[in-house]
């Protein structure tokens, strides 16, 4: 029932965070599958967003189950009649969400950088 003597004088909190000098780190953050790292980065962000979205949806499903236990059914949620104020506020939120998420698709490139001094040797 005991930790051995060999480890008694070792600080367990720091003892394990002691990767040795010759430890090989995978450096997986810098793996490039595409010619431009930004494409890798963007795709990673897309996957991460998917994970966040599913996490939220799953929480909502759990929430609905919990609400059911206290008498609020899924049907109650489906049948909820929003007020005019609700609808207006939600529409505003929706449009902000759409712009924030998909706005990048409107971009056509060719940035106007004429104001920059290209001859400047920085």
């Amino acid at each position: 029932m005991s930790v051995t003597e060999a480890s008694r004088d070792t600080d367990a909190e720091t003892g394990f965070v002691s990767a040795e000098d010759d430890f090989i780190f995978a450096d997986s953050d810098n793996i490039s599958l595409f010619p431009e790292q930004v494409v890798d980065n963007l795709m990673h962000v897309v996957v991460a967003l998917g994970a966040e979205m599913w996490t939220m949806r799953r929480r909502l499903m759990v929430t609905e189950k919990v609400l059911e236990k206290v008498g609020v059914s899924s049907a109650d949620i489906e049948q909820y009649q929003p007020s005019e104020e609700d609808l207006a506020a939600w529409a505003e939120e929706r449009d902000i969400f759409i712009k924030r998420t998909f706005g990048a698709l409107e971009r056509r490139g060719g940035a106007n950088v004429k104001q920059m001094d290209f001859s400047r040797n920085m």
Partner: protein
Amino acid sequence: MLTDRGFSKRNRRVRSLDVESYSDFVLGFRNWTYNDLDKPARERADEIMTDLRLNAEDAPLDAFRDQFHDDPVIATRIRAWLSSQQLMWQNVLDHYEQHKDFYHADMQDVDDKGPGTLELNTGMDMPDYVKHEIHIQPGGYTGNDFAGPLYHYGTNTFYKGQNNEDEFQFGIAETLAKPRDGKIERIVDIGCGIGRLSVALAETFPDAEVWGLDVGGPLVRYAHRRAVELGTPVHFAQRLAEDTKFEDNSIDIVAAYILFHEVSEQGAKDIVKEVFRILRPGGVFDVTDFHTGRARSNDPYRRFMGWIDHVYNAERWSHQFGQKDFLDTLREAGFEVEKGENRHWGIACYIARKPE
């Protein structure tokens, strides 16, 4: 948020619904990646081979590797896997780092408790073959305090949700090769990791003394914590499989589950030699691992993905392990060997008996 969410059948549920849900996404996304998203990538590989006019049977990997790697469809397939795996680790690690004070205290609280025991040797020399981030797990098995829960909650997605309650380990325990005389008093699980097989063995053979050894201190620490919670008596120790500290001829059964493909060829030889030493005459070494000694696949895409696994997934030794028939390695140490029935997912079973 840190919430005690109770237990599933055998496991403490991670203390955050969101961490669990995030892992659930990774499980589903990974399945999709390995199946649906794999199809267009494989088709592209076939098209590239045709364009290059290469014969799949004799073309060296060098002849098509760069073309595969540079193809955007194949790159998308690999990127999807890589990102999901990185996020899988990061999701769990962020939670444990965020609540590290709680989890450190939680582990310390159990270190001295039973049933079973914990032996940590944090200053011990590590073999070179373990000093890397296997499966790109941050810190690997030895360099991160939370390697145990990271491995547990992370690899449950590898198992596609089919091993959440240690089903595979119980399958091994129930079909474990036994000494012909039936005497089973001491069992050692080498490379035990988080001890899933160790506890399955202890519960399947309640009259036997069961040990779980692993080079990763954080792994055996978590294994002990979990065994205590399950009420299963196992002696966990941070020791090398090639230096177990047991006396000659003192063990009835040694088991190893998916250990050897993570070990260098020399490391594997040293471990097998040590197992032969500690097993009693008539004792059995039961190994569950990948199939070995097969001819190289003629499928270029499969060979390429094997290379990706080696280079990007830090599978340093699995290719080497697959090349030599593991029965030969066992035989060379003096064992009488045979192949057992395949185990879950068709994984191989190697049975080695120490001559009487």
